[in-house]
Every structure is written in structure tokens, then in C-alpha cells.
């Protein structure tokens, strides 16, 4: 899978994101690094922040499209 469909799923889940990136770590289309910085993550624990990402990517995670997912999230205060 290319990074584009994952990017779209994340953009839908985090419409307020100031930073949103998906990197194919190995070039094989199944090991991804996701970076999300968004005000909607502000005040949440890292566990809760990562849960939001997992929820957004539930379909490609459960059907095996994503074999490995690394997540880096940050909640930023609203300006």
C-alpha cells in the first residue's frame, strides 16, 4: 500500500493537524511511520493519543495491510 490512503484516513481523523506525515520505512508498503501533531490531541496521555491513531487506521491494521506501525504524536495547545 502507498502512503496516500493512510494519509487520507489520518487527515479525516485529524482535520486540525498542523503536522501529518506517513513514511514508508522500508519501501515495502507495509512498515509505516506516522507523525501527527494536532490540537485535538492536546491534554491526552500518549496512550490515548496513540489510540486515536489506531482508531483512524483500524481498517488497514486489521486486514494486515499495515504490518508494522510506528507512531509519533504530539498534542499542541490551540493558538
Amino acid at each position: 500500500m502507498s502512503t496516500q490512503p493512510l494519509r487520507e484516513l489520518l487527515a479525516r481523523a485529524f482535520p486540525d493537524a498542523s503536522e501529518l506525515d506517513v513514511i514508508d520505512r522500508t519501501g515495502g508498503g507495509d512498515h509505516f511511520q506516522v507523525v501527527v501533531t494536532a490540537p485535538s490531541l492536546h491534554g491526552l496521555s500518549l496512550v490515548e493519543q496513540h489510540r486515536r491513531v489506531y482508531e483512524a487506521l483500524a481498517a488497514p491494521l486489521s486486514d494486515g495491510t499495515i504490518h508494522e506501525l510506528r507512531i509519533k504524536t504530539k498534542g499542541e495547545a490551540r493558538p
Partner: protein
Amino acid sequence: MRYSEKIKDVIQSSDVALFMKGTPAFVMCGNSDRALQALRRAGAPVTAVDILPDPQIRQELSAISGWPTIPQVFVKGELVGGADIVEELEQSGELEQTLREKLGDDYASTRAEQTVALA
């Protein structure tokens, strides 16, 4: 629900529980290794559980924790996160702080690492 009771028991009764692919002596996945190494750097007394012997273990674990990936780290029954979070917390010093708060200042003195087999 063959393993649920055992999984819950390990989570509740262990100071630090690490559900991983393989064992500390023979790690079968890079992310499990990242979590293990971060916990070791923090001096955590790890109780490791290999989820590979039966796919059912992972399914039941994720149903309990609501966390879809492996590894999973729990401190005193509470989910701390997977490899990314544990690494991040270790690097910022928050992991040691959490361990000290939940296990006491001398938590690292035991240095006990044990492996529990569920299957």
C-alpha cells in the same frame, strides 16, 4: 477465552508486564526488543510473556487492553503503551519517574527479569 484469566492475572500481579514476540533471551521482533531495551535501561523489573506460542493469546490480550499491536507494557496493571511510547518515556526520564512512583524508590534494586509461559 482460554487465556484471559491468566493474562489478567499477569497484568495485575506483575510490577512491570511486557507482552512480546519471543522471550528476553530470544526476541523475535524488533519492536519487542525496543521495548525490552528501554525497560532494561530504566532498570525495570520485567515479567515477560511470549505471545507467539498461540495466536489466541494476542487476540485475547488486545481484547482486554484495547491495544492492537505488540509489544504491550503494563506497570502495576495499567497500560503504559507500546514500543514507541516506552522509548519516548524512557528518553524523557518519565518512565523512571513512573516506575519510582508506582513501585517505590528502590524499584531498580531487584533487577529481576522473569518469563511467564501462558500456553
